[in-house]
C-alpha cells in the first residue's frame, strides 16, 4: 500500500470510528428518545423497536472500537456498510411514505421538518467511505498474497 493510500484509509477509518462512537454515546445518553425515534419510522413493531434502542448504539460502539483491531477491522467495516444501507433504506422509505420522522442518528429527538436529502446524502457518503475501505483492504490483502 502506498503511503498516501495508507494515510487516506487510516484517516477515513478514524473518521468513521469517531462518528460511530459519537453517535453511540449520544444515543446511550437518552435511550427513551432513540426508542421514540425508531417508532417514528413506523416500520417495526414495538417488540422489535425497544430492543433495537439498545442494540443499535451497542453495535455502533463495538464497530467504533473494532475498526482499530486488525483482526476485526474488515468485519466491522462490513457490518458498518450493512448498517448504513439499512439506515438509508429506512429513511428513504419514510420519505416516500411522507412521514415526519426524527432520524435518531445522533440522539436528537425532534426535527419538525425532516431534511431527507441531507440525511440520505450523509448516509450514502458514509456508505461510500465504508465501501472504499472494504475495497482498499481487499486490494491490500490481494497485493500482499500476490
Amino acid at each position, binding site marked *: 500500500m502506498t503511503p498516501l493510500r495508507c494515510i487516506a484509509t487510516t484517516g477515513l477509518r478514524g473518521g468513521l470510528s469517531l462518528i460511530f462512537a459519537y453517535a453511540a454515546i449520544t444515543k*446511550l445518553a437518552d*435511550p*427513551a*428518545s432513540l*426508542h*421514540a*425515534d425508531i*417508532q*417514528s419510522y*413506523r416500520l417495526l413493531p414495538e417488540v422489535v423497536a*425497544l*430492543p433495537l*434502542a*439498545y*442494540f443499535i*448504539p*451497542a*453495535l455502533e*460502539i*463495538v*464497530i467504533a472500537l*473494532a475498526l482499530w483491531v486488525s*483482526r*476485526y477491522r*474488515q*468485519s*466491522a467495516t*462490513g*457490518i458498518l456498510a450493512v448498517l448504513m444501507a439499512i439506515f438509508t433504506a429506512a429513511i428513504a422509505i419514510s420519505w416516500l411514505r*411522507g*412521514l*415526519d*420522522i*426524527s432520524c435518531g442518528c445522533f440522539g436528537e*429527538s*425532534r426535527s*419538525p*421538518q425532516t431534511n431527507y436529502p441531507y440525511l440520505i446524502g450523509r448516509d450514502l457518503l458514509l456508505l461510500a467511505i465504508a465501501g472504499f475501505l472494504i475495497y482498499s483492504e481487499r486490494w491490500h490483502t490481494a497485493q500482499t498474497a500476490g
Partner: protein
Amino acid sequence: MKRHIVTTIQLLCIALLLATALAFINPIQQTNEDVITAKALVQMIAEDKALIIDARPASAYERAHIPNALNIIEGDWEQSLSNILDMWQSDRSIVIYCDSAQCSTSEQIAIRLKSDLAIERIYTLQGGWEAWQKANQ
C-alpha cells in the same frame, strides 16, 4: 471468508451482550400512548383541564394554533421542558398535537415527557391540527 464470518458473528454477539447490559443499567420506562379526539379536547379546554402543547414548527404555530397552546422550542428541549413545568398544574392533563395523523412528533414528545417528567396524564391529539380544524369549522 470463513474467518470473516466468524469475526462478524463475534462482533454481533459482543454487541448483543453489551445491549443486554445497557438495558439492565438504564431501562426505558414503558409509556402509555393515550390518544384523545378533538371533540374530547374541546371539552377539556372548556373545563380548563388541559395544558396544550403544539409540536409543530414555530412558523406553523405562528400562523395559527389551538388557543393557549404552548409551542415546543425547536432544538431547546430543556427550555421547552421548563416552560411546560411553569404552565402545568397537577389537575391538568397534557395534550400534544402535531400537523396530522401522518406526523409522529406529538407521540415522540409524549414519550419524552413521560420519561422526563413522570406525569401520567399525557395524551396526543388524534389527527393533530388537521383534525382540530375540521372539528372546529
